């Protein structure tokens, strides 16, 4: 199990809601989609890849085969599904700091929803209703969603720059265009390195995995060799 893949975290939260109020939630979702300004706060939180809310009726859960026992559910459910960069705390806290009103609107009719402020009861609510991710694959473990967006911007700008280049272009003109290229990309040039660790527990799990596959021992030996050399230099 891991909710983490590279710099991404997957969060699934499923919370009960009465069928009598579920339709109200659907209405709110519908309005939010029609009026994008309601989602502006969410979009400004750039650590979020996306967030999705779905109402699953009590009879809508998959029933794969006649041999699968039928479930008798009391409630409908709201599934919240999101991928983001950073830690659980950072994500949940960003939500409650920035858009507590929006959260309360979306979860308002969910059973025993405590409201997003104060923080600790909200943390507990999410924790207790979160479903751990069993399988999670990330094709670009080093990249955050900002990194991906920036990479695309850099690529597009470079191609455009290339297309506008002419063999007989004056040096001055080239420089001016080049400066404009860099200026236009000045918020897209961040480096992409394997930092930071998400939490000490996640880090320890990751180290244990590497121990079991034998790579950690090799790394430590290499590090010690390097450090031995360093101490010698002092």
């Amino acid at each position, binding site marked *: 199990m891991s909710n983490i893949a590279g710099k991404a975290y997957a969060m699934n939260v499923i919370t009960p809601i009465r069928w009598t109020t579920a339709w109200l939630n659907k209405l709110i979702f519908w309005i939010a989609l029609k009026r994008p300004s309601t989602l502006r706060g969410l979009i*400004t939180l*750039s650590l979020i890849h996306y967030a999705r809310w779905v109402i699953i009726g009590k009879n809508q859960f998959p029933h794969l085969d006649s041999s699968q026992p039928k479930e008798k559910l009391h409630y409908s459910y709201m599934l919240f599904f999101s991928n983001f960069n950073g830690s659980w705390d950072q994500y949940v806290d960003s939500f409650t*700091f*920035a858009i507590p009103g929006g959260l309360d609107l979306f979860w308002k009719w969910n059973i025993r929803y405590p409201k997003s402020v104060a923080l600790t009861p909200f943390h507990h609510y999410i924790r207790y209703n979160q479903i751990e991710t069993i399988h999670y694959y990330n094709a670009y473990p080093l990249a955050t969603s900002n990194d991906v967006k920036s990479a695309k911007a850099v690529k597009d700008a470079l191609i455009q720059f290339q297309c506008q280049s002419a063999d007989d272009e004056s040096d001055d003109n080239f420089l001016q265009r080049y400066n404009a290229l*860099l*200026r236009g990309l000045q918020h897209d040039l*961040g480096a992409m390195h394997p930092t930071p*660790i998400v939490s000490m527990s996640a880090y320890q799990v990751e180290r244990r995995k590497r121990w079991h596959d034998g790579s950690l021992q090799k790394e430590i030996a290499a590090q010690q060799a390097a450090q031995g050399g360093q101490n010698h230099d002092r």
Partner: protein
Amino acid sequence: MTQKLDLLDIQGNIIRAYGRFGYPMARYVFFNIRHSARAREFVGTVTDRVTTAVEWGEGPGQIKQPDWTVNIAFAYQGLKQLELPRASLSGFSPEFISGMKDRRDILGDDGPSSPENWDPIWAENRKNRDKDVHIFIALNARLPALLEEGYAWLTGVAKQYRDAVAILNGHRGEHGALYDYQDVKAVMENGQPTAKEHFGYTDGIGDPVFEGAPNYDLNVRGRGKQLEDGSWAPLATGEFLLGHIDEAREYPPAPEPILLSRNGTYMVYRKLHENVATFDAYLDEQGRKYPGGKELLAAKFVGRWRDNGAPLVKAPDAESKQKFDAEFAAADQAGKDKLLSDFTFDDDMSGAKCPFSSHIRRINPRASLQMVKGSKPGSMIFNKDAFDTPGALSNRRRILRRGLPYGEVKDRSRDDGNHGIVIMMLNTDINRQFEFVQQEWINYGNDFQEGSDKEILLGNHNADNKFPSKAVLQVDPNSDQAPYMLSKIPRFIETRGGEYFFVPSLTALRMIAQGVVDPT
């Protein structure tokens, strides 16, 4: 919603940055406990002399300003040795319980900053029971002779309790000599204490203002939290003092009973070495290439000019700086303070004045994280009303800063002298406040849409070629300039030690001393 704090119950170092109140020197002494019951008596004796946050005055019934101050704090191991009940101990935050060394991977204390390279007192802490750092005592003084007086008092008390507590040796000083204490003092110029640190910057300006702190309403602009309508409000007390409501309108998690935690807080102690030669060389080298010249470049690293601390958003170039200086010279104390502190990043959303990677923007971004890309290439715009409050992403990441520089730069061409800063940061949630800033904003840049680019001054930059550090100094998107790239940034700051401490209230100190802490 104004509330008055019980200043007689709060330790003085929480409310006052002593350096700015006429105490430009201090000595920090650390103890290991050898006998629990007698150590509680030691705490009691020290407590009688502890400096509170009460207002000083010369009048009848008022408390006179002391010549030297005493403050005390405890590491988790220390509270355990003092035999706090398990039920109270387990209420402390996990990172306080683990200690700073254990959090190295979160804090980015690697390479030259890694615990193996810390001063012996810190390297040996939490390794061997007899070397564990248990108690922290700080003496701040007005004059060197008074500091000696305070120290003589403390060593006298320690001697009286030598069966109970031992002063820990192992603070590196001049030429690697090891001391029984960490000496710190303001950088002196012509015999006068200054607000400078060893790279030449003016320090000690920004400090959060919170509800109930003395005079909080007078200097809230630029120091509290920025509101939608351009006004400022003090931060919630609970961001800095346990047992008070915080920004999330709840009591921050704290150990029980409430009498143990209320009016106390957590303190992050960090000894940070400054590589002055590396800094000067890098600044010289880049300053020759940087179009704005060396001093502007130095200002870009921090977000303030070195000489008087003028904020870049108010004085973004040499010309505006001249105007600022004239105004600054003519202003009275309150006016000067306003000029230095009362600013926002709202008119500098793209970072053309104060770069995204600069020290003060990364550490206190004010409302600037409410940002989205603008339609003009290279621009960021203020996304008004996106969040419930514009400072939503920074208001819960604030820290009170205490501490002073240590050592003296005798040879600017060498890194290995005895010089740096002992910084002490106070907050009610080490993980949410200090550690978050250190990890996500200093050693990483995604929140600023700068990928892995680190904060210029403090980042744990790598000298190797595998992951060299760089920073982008943004320019006005409407200009014809190119952003300036700082490449291969070396490590200017190295960690030399530190630990997490709990700073109890006077009530809690007395309870600890009497051994009566009981959460039942």
